[in-house]
């Protein structure tokens, strides 16, 4: 497929479909001799689609399971249940059942950009070797060393790295430049899908903006699909086409960015938004008071998992777990009282 054709591909063509994805981590057994095994439900039946060429933002606080979702899709972890289908050019592939050599080979379709630009680069390899690793690890295309060098240089240039620096080691670089190296490594194999796991969280503000712009430019140029995981709502708002909000292993609200940020329908989304301090001394900072803390995922409350902190909790919320319900334009909310919230927000 040529670049022009790729860019013309319709925006609502699905790249990844996730259905009831589950990832439970065992945390030992109840009772001394076996008995029932206990789990932390890090990801608890999560469903969503990602369209080709779009950026889906995934936000949530610590313990929400957002990082686990990303890593489960990349098969850094093996999901314990559910379906995840990846529509490559050669037809759909079931991500959950891929194993061994097949999985190693499939990895060129998907990549990850890490949070910590220090820990994610092997300090003992030159920048050239780091970037070339996805090509050399599994040389499916059968490239020669010269061709690999050429690809590395091309990608490094795209990421605005100085080509003379390719034979340097990571210790020569600052955080922002290191993150460019991470991006180059992720993109050198021209993957269709890239998970950005808090990829700008560790960077200074003045550098962060540059990396965000770079990611957006590269996305357009190479037609990449992003899953952008972050806790910083303003960054997610800026970069995403659609946003999913997670709370303790579940998606509580998902929809187009504008819908989520201007017409949130879940009380948790509202609370999150109100808690973002704006750099404007005139803006009244009145965060919605959420009582208590995030529940332990090994010991979830009955009913809606937000009921321990929700300002508008009712008896029903303590009994019945709400499903995601559609409110048009792909805006789905898991709250029994989603209708009322929009009314309240307007007032």
């Amino acid at each position, binding site marked *: 497929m040529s670049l022009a054709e790729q860019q013309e591909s319709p925006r609502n063509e699905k790249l990844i479909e996730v259905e009831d994805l589950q990832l439970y981590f065992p945390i030992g057994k109840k009772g001394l001799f076996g008995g029932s095994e206990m789990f932390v439900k890090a990801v608890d039946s999560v469903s969503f689609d990602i369209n080709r060429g779009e950026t889906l933002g995934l936000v949530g606080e610590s313990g929400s399971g957002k990082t686990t979702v990303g890593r489960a899709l990349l098969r850094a972890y093996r999901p314990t249940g559910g379906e995840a289908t990846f529509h490559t050019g050669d037809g759909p592939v079931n991500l959950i059942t891929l194993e061994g050599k097949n999985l*190693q080979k499939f*990895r060129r379709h998907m*990549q990850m950009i890490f949070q910590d630009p220090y820990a994610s680069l092997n300090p003992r*390899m030159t920048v050239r070797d780091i970037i070339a690793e996805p090509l050399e690890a599994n040389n499916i295309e059968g490239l020669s060393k010269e061709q690999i060098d050429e690809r590395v240089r091309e990608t490094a240039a795209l990421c605005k790295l100085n080509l003379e620096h390719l034979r*340097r*080691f990571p210790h020569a670089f600052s955080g922002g430049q290191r993150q460019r190296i991470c991006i180059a*490594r992720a993109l050198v194999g021209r993957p269709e899908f890239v998970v950005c796991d808090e990829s700008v969280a560790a960077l200074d503000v003045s550098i962060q903006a540059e990396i965000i712009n770079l990611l957006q430019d590269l996305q357009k140029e190479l037609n990449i699909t992003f899953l952008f995981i972050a806790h910083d709502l303003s960054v997610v708002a800026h970069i995403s086409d659609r946003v999913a909000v997670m709370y303790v292993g579940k998606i509580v609200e998902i929809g187009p960015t504008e819908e989520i940020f201007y017409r949130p329908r879940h009380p948790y989304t509202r609370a999150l938004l109100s808690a973002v301090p704006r750099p404007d001394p005139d803006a009244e900072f009145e965060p919605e008071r959420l009582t208590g803390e995030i529940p332990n995922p090994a010991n979830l409350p009955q009913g809606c998992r937000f009921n321990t902190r929700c300002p508008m909790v009712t008896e029903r919320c303590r009994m019945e777990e709400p499903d995601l319900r559609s409110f048009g334009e792909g805006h789905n909310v898991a709250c029994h009282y989603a209708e009322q919230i929009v009314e309240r927000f307007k007032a």
Partner: protein
Amino acid sequence: MSTSEMTNETRKQQDAVKYYTASQWQLIWWRFRRHKAAMVGAIVLLTMIITGVFAEFFAPYGPTTRDSKQVYSAPQIPQFWDHNGFSLRPFVHGVTTKRDPVTLRLIAKPDPETRIYLEFFAHTGEDYDFFGLFKSDLRLFALDDPKAKIHLFGTDDLGRDVFSRVLYASRTSLSVGFIGVMLSFVLALVIGGIAGYYGGWTDYTIQRGTEIIRVIPIIPLYMGISAAFPPEWTNIQVYFAMTIIFGFLGWPTLARRIRGHLLSQRHEDYVLAAELSGASPYRVISKHMLPSFTSYIIVDLVISFPYIILSETALSFIGLGLRPPSVSWGILLQEGQNVRAIEQAPWLFIPAAFVVVAVLAFTILGDGLRDAADPYQVADK
């Protein structure tokens, strides 16, 4: 002024480029170099190893060559100066041996009037066989009078040259340490590697097994095993048996360290990044994990050296390890273990200084290496 500033500037840039393109080993070396004590330790050890390996060349006499005229003779120190004036060539005074009329013991007495000069790179006429590779009689130094002998550290009860014996003993003791460490390293690498990479119940079983070995008190065990050596074994056989025992008992500590390194590295982001790049487990281990821990492993090896050397010394000292006519530091010390030696020939304890210095040097070297082993700690942040 501007040109000097310019060259200064370009030199700074070149330095920076050199630093930025420096590999892990260069960075480790640069850091290690700054550690003065460790550098001294390294030089001392290197000297010991070289003189030990080439003992035939550095020692003026063989380890068992006797000088019946000079029993228990005191150390002779080469001089440039005596009451007869200055000489550019170092010399020692000749020795005359007389029998004490009362105790009938031979007493070696230096004769301040005779000078015997030292000759360097001397052909002594006494042939040695260098590891069966070649025969030669070239030695670093000897006296130019073939009938006279020089004893830097004195002689023992049989008139053997303590200096030569110490050099040969260094070879034995260091090589026991080296082979023992290598053996335990191979075992530790396999066992610790399996435990660390697979984790789970494999790790659990191996860990418990390791603990069982670790709780056995070492000295009684050594004593038990070496007492079981058949007495008809030759010294070579005993030597190898001992290194194997040291190797087999030394691995648990090392295996734990290797397991620890592996476990901590498995959770590094860059290892995950390699896996996500499609690298096979073999490639992940060999290309991404191993290079970063070789430096730690070297540190661990250096640190475990002294334990084996001390074990050998202790065993031989109590008479359960190597036996004469082999020479090791332990044997030399054992020979000094009598009243007469303490009273009349304190130089027989010079080998003890070698043990102390060697152990100290290994420890200091290990310390310096440990500080340098992770050159990215500071450079990173």
